[in-house]
């Protein structure tokens, strides 16, 4: 297990390198000149040139890229082109917002997805199964940000049960944090809940027809015990894959919901950085995303091992 973790983490290094090269190349190819923006509204040509020089924009591309990479290896992702804000500070301020949102949504995905999946998969063809299947179809069709807007209108503005947005730090007030996150996290989780429900329903239905399940039943075990103790663990493997993929989807989907609900998370930071061509920030966000995705994939692989001893043996 330890070996697996180390190997996987080492593999991310060349990956990060390639990704950083792509990001740098894209940022340089896309036209736009931060110096003109920084110089401000009554800019003079002289001032623009002065800023270009300060930013090192006049250096050859390879020198600029070298500076960036050197920073990454020394743990210093640099400073925003536009302010004294350290890239690491910008990300660590924005990341808790996005992680809170995506984390709570993930909790909903697992909680609701597994519950609904069990409900539908354990009794295929039942009323509950049919209702959930229809709801799942609706859930797949509704984009998260749209659901978010509808939730704001209904529960925020008309009924007044929930705030319409604005993030509250967990350290300030944990209950209020949850209260402010509830609507966006629910909207964000919807697609994942549906996905997990459908996967679990399908794989549980297959598993339930396996011989060993029949044997367990024949032994006289209760239905609940058969499902929870015997069937679920085997049926869970494809579901874990789906949940792993959901982590990435939730992080991406959080961007749109952050905007709808007025949260200043990584999404808002990323968009601002891209519009401004703030290369150090873009680079930082991409590297962080690659890292988060790698870690989540690693966790999924470790979960396989736990669920299926055959994987561990390999």
């Amino acid at each position, binding site marked *: 297990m330890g070996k697996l973790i180390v190997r996987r983490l080492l593999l991310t290094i060349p990956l990060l390198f390639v990704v950083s090269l792509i990001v740098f190349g894209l940022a340089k190819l896309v*036209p*736009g*000149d931060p110096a*003109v*923006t*920084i*110089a*401000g*509204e*009554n*800019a*003079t*040509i*002289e*001032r*623009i040139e002065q800023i270009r020089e300060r930013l090192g924009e006049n250096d050859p591309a390879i020198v600029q890229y070298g500076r960036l990479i050197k920073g990454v290896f020394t743990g210093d992702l640099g400073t925003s082109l*536009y*302010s*004294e*804000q350290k890239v690491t500070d*910008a990300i660590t*301020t924005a990341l808790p917002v996005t992680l809170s949102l995506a984390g709570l949504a993930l909790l909903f995905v697992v909680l609701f997805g597994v519950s609904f999946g069990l409900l539908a998969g354990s009794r295929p063809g039942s009323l509950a199964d049919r209702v959930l299947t229809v709801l799942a179809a609706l859930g797949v069709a509704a984009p998260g*940000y749209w659901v978010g*807007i509808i939730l*704001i209108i209904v529960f*925020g*503005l008309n009924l*007044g049960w929930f*705030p*319409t*947005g*604005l993030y509250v730090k967990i350290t300030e007030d944990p209950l209020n944090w949850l209260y402010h996150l509830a609507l966006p996290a629910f909207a964000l989780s919807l697609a994942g809940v549906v996905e997990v429900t459908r996967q679990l329903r399908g794989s549980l239905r297959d598993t339930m027809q396996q011989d060993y399940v029949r044997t367990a039943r024949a032994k006289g075990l209760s239905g609940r015990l058969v499902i929870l103790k015997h069937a679920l663990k085997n049926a869970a493997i494809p579901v874990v894959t789906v949940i792993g993929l959901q982590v990435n989807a939730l992080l991406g989907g959080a*961007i*749109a919901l952050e*905007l*709808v*609900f*007025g949260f*200043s998370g990584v*999404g*808002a*930071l990323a*968009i*601002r950085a891209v*519009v*401004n*061509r703030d290369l150090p920030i873009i680079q930082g966000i991409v590297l962080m995303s690659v890292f988060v995705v790698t870690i989540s994939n690693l966790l999924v692989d470790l979960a396989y091992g736990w669920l299926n001893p055959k994987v561990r043996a390999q």
Partner: protein
Amino acid sequence: MRRSLVALVGASLVVAACGDDSKSSEQTTAVTKVAQEVTTLASTTTVAGSTAAPSTTAAAKPIDTNATLRFSYQVGPTSWDPARMSSSFDTPTAFFAYDRLVHLNTGAEAIPGIAEKWEFSADGKALTFTLRKGVKFHDGTPLDAEAVKANLLRNAAGASKGELAPIDTIDTPDPLTVKLNLKSPGGSLPGVLTDRPGVLASPKSFADEAATKALDLMPVGAGMYKVTEFVKDQKIVLERFADYWDKAAQGAAKVEILVLADNNARANALKSGQLDIINLDASQIDEFKKISGLKVTEGLSLNLMHVQLNRSKPFLDKKEVRQAMNMAVDRAALVKLANYGYGAPNNQYFPKGYFGYNEAISIDQYKYEPAKAKEMLKAAGVPDNWELDTVVPNLNYYLTLAQAVKDQMAAAGINLKLRPVDPVQTAPIFYVQQSGDVLISVFGGRADPAQLLNSLFTKGPIQNPGGHTTPKIVELVAKANEPGDQKTRAAAVQAASKEIADEAMNVVMLHSSGAFAATEKLAGFTAWLGGKPEFRGVGLTK
């Protein structure tokens, strides 16, 4: 949503990049109006001239001096370091924490701030400010002549290089006197110093490199409120500054500013009671006017939409051709189409109600007469279906406006080939590379009208690509830059304006409107012609 944020940030960039002072209109609208559009509860009276005190507030209901004012704006300051502030979007949030020598009143005229009065020498080569006694920065440092000198010299070497160019040296004969020695006419300086170039930070905050870096993320000003918490692009929390010189300006005990880029997120937060005041987009004004419990303050601003011509390109150097182009747009229709009826059609650079506005320039000087325009173009030798490479920032508002202008101009035989460009690229393309024949975009009002005239109509500034001008305009703009009392300067600006309209230098189309929505409790807030509201005396009633 995502697109709307991009649009918003983009809009701010166009504005920054174009050297505009405004919010562009799609998402923008920190724009406000002439003083006649006033909130019902109270009014902030500010008197023009260099003797009036800046804020006296008379509210119908008493203001709750313990209240927290919650305001949301679409962007926060680009920097807290005055020498690095680069956008005029900075000021509505920054002026809570920073003060300046000179203030603007709601009619966009210079009035005393930290300086009690100012005076030009007889030859116009020096401008002397007399400071208020006992003013302090938030760190306790006295705001004296030396502090002002250090700030102005620093700002002049930084982001305000262009605006403060007339300043040669600065003398400080005594702690309350600052004498600016000028190397070029500085009539616009009092106005200029009301804005970012005049922002004063404690000299200790830029005493060394480490302090200067910290200043970028935490202001040490002398403003009404002191920042207690700042999260870049997210949140600014401020508390009343106990030693502030004008207590009447401090309507609230605490201020919370949330930076929310998305129009709907701001609107929802106000509707659900999480905020007290927000800025509105023109498309939201009608909706908010109908909501009970909320009030809208709406008005005309200095920000304008124009078709800017690179007059060094073929045919555009001919006056008759430019006049014909001016007759090929239906300005009133554009206001309806692109601005939801808010704002005002105009064919001069300054709006009605502003001291630079010239009554003698008739809105009918260039009536919409496409047939006549077509004839004039033909007479000038312009080919039929004349193609013009038209740069447009790639944002919904500008694209809508540009498409409408294109349709109107087609009737006069002008074929605008629209080239949507990334908003950030607008200035590099049209101003720096001088690519494109015309630009359809916003141009923001400057703190002083002479600044606008200088940038657009003299040879040299990058905002006049091609550098075309006329000797007469150069002479009139120079006069507008000369010091004088308000009346003399107004006359000089208006004279330059008239010549610019007669020469049809560009095609001015309309002045934008801007609006704010607030709870009924908000008191002391009025519309600001400058387009940048200040919150002097603004608070919440009990």
